[in-house]
């Protein structure tokens, strides 16, 4: 029987890679996402515009503004002169945030009193605003410390911080390992479910059913090529992460690929299940989309799972992406051990067996 499966697998790969359009659809998303994502997916704030409404106008504030302009976050300082202008600058999004320096600023500094500064943030971009505000705070504190140097009560750096696994908190260290999981999802699902519904649409499925292949073997024959595609794509991203983006790979390749197998298996389970309940490619496509989008959003890639309401956190347990992202990041950045990996592979196994069984049942029911 294994020869017959090999024949199925070879045919599937020939169909996938045989025409230029098919190859493009497999490669282009990987390349584009590899190029764009690490560059685009960052929550740092850079090159933005800061508006400053300096009501004081003294030497001290000039110095302060100078410091703002040196920060990487702010490429441009927009000096404004009145509250009307302040309003329009924020309303029209000409600046991410505005700093209002009150007229008593210099005086209070000189008196050693606590100067007050007001920051106006754009609520439409409050996340970036908050991050930028953090930078402003640091600059102000630094400035203040220097102004007060020589005074009696000097504050040193209060806390020592060490960021494990990614000491400079580089965002793409976080993005790339996650991409190993997200990018492979799309192709694996599409290859599994669409190839099956295409056979159904084009009548070749009947041809398979009258052959000595059993439905189980046909499913295996569909699963293997999809998993191969997923593995190759995953490897490309892994290599790009290590060699192009220079992210140190800490863990064990055996563990990574071992768990990738179960991850892809659970995806294939979903793909086969979707195609077993769809009769056209269009339906299968919609099905894949309806599964994939929530799966990516709820995987912890775009926003931490901890922030979700409890009922939604429960739903994420059924999302294979959620578990695999933990594994890739863990193995890639943290050298996660077998013990830990096993705990995350377990849910993948459960998902795979549930979906594969469901696919098998509904497959047989339709044939019957």
């Amino acid at each position, binding site marked *: 029987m294994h020869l017959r499966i090999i024949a199925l697998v070879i045919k599937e790969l020939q169909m996938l890679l045989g025409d230029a359009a098919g190859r493009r*659809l497999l490669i282009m*998303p990987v390349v584009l996402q590899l190029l*764009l*994502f690490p*560059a*685009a*997916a*960052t929550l*740092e*704030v*850079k*090159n*933005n515009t800061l508006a400053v409404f300096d009501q004081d106008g003294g030497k001290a504030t000039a110095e302060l503004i100078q410091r703002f302009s040196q920060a990487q976050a702010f*490429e441009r300082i927009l000096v404004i002169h009145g509250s009307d202008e302040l309003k*329009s600058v*924020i*309303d*029209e999004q000409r600046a991410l945030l505005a700093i209002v320096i009150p007229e008593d600023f210099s005086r209070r500094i000189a008196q050693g*009193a606590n100067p*007050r*500064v007001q920051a106006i*943030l*754009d*609520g*439409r*971009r409050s*996340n970036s*605003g908050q991050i930028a*505000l*953090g930078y402003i*705070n640091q600059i102000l*504190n630094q400035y203040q410390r220097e102004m007060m140097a020589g005074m009696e*009560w000097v504050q*040193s750096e*209060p*806390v*020592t911080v060490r*960021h*494990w*696994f*990614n000491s400079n908190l580089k965002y793409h*260290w*976080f993005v790339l390992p996650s991409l190993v999981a997200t990018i492979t999802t799309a192709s694996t699902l599409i290859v599994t479910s*669409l190839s099956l519904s*295409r056979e159904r649409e084009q009548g070749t499925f009947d041809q398979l059913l009258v052959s000595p292949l059993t439905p189980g073997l046909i499913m295996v024959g569909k699963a293997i090529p999809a998993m191969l595609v997923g593995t190759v794509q995953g490897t490309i991203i892994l290599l790009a992460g290590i060699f192009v983006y220079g992210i140190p790979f800490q863990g064990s390749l055996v563990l990574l690929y071992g768990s990738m197998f179960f991850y892809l298996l659970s995806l294939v389970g979903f793909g086969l299940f979707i195609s077993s309940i769809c009769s056209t490619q269009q339906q299968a496509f*919609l099905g894949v*989309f*309806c599964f994939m*989008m929530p799966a990516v959003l*709820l995987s912890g890639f*775009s*926003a*931490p799972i*901890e*922030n*979700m309401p409890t009922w939604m956190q429960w739903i994420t347990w059924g999302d294979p992406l959620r578990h695999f992202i933990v594994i890739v*990041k*863990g193995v890639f950045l*943290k050298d996660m051990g077998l013990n*830990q990996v096993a705990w995350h592979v377990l849910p993948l196994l459960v998902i795979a067996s549930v979906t594969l069984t469901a696919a098998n049942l509904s497959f047989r029911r339709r044939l019957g």
Partner: protein
Amino acid sequence: MPQSFSQRRFLALCRKETLQIVRDPSSLLISVILPLVMLVIFGYGLNLDANRIRVGLVLEDQGDEAREFASELVGSRYFTVVSGPRLEMTQALANGKVRGVLVLASDFGRRTLLHPGEAPIQILTDGAEPNTASFVENYVEGAWKVWQQHRANQRGLPMPTSMDVEARFWFNPSAKSRNYLIPGSITIIMTVIGALLTSLVVAREWERGTMEALLATPMTRAEFLLSKILPYYGLGILSLLVCVAAAIFILGVPFRGSVGALLLVGTVFLLSSLGMGLLLSTLTRNQFNAAQAALNAAFMPAMMLSGFIYEIRSMPLIVQAVSRLIPARYFVTSMQTLFQAGDVWPVLVLDLFYLSIAAIYFLGMTWRKTARSLD
């Protein structure tokens, strides 16, 4: 080929298209159910506001000072604190069970008393989650500062001065991420829906062989294309309104703009996204490829490059340039403005301008590529 536009033919084609929409359950699925489901997922699943982050506490000093500071953190609404010995906690950090560990070493109390300015606290974070890591860092630093001042106050010690920044979030005073993520999500949803709806319609005519029969009638290109746009525009506006209503009434996001402005911007945006779907459909003549291309061209770029989550200004210049080509980028700012700030026309007019260019480009290209013969 001078041909005259016939209203009768146009209406008949529109009627046909509408009947097909009404009778195909998948169009209802795409235009109403899918947006609602997506909105719920975006609304609840995509939350950047830190909330119950699990943090480990290593309390090696059992003195009053350490306990007092620790209780400050335990009481925080942002943290769920677990405590244990250092080894256990660092293990938990490595396993992702906690996102940060706060160590108060055995000499915490002594050193706080002797040199209140020196650093007796150590924070370890999980750098694999950079966002959470920096939040933990900032929060603990802030808490430490507050606690120090508080202590100084209590004991009448000279209070270390610090510059107060009084932050005010306009439009969104409590800085809820949902308030700006939801309008952005609606953009993503509408981009996908618009492109998905029309990416199938021309390809379907080719695949089912109806195109050849249509071409053999006196029907003109304008009649054909307009009949493909108008019904789907109606459907698109319907799903936009469904989304906005759900955002306001179910998710409780305030809407401060006017319905007129929403419809105006929504119309121009829909024309661009329907236009993109039509163009792909016209070029590929194959439902499967068209849908796949539409999804690739609509969903991912809108998600990544529209400024909906990630700040466009922080991206490399070349990526910023690419983002200029994405209609969703302009609709995101419009929607965020309409929801939170109201009808700020300088923003809306600029967005409308770019969106119109995109709509004209996509529809114009579709016009040019629409076959009038089978050659």
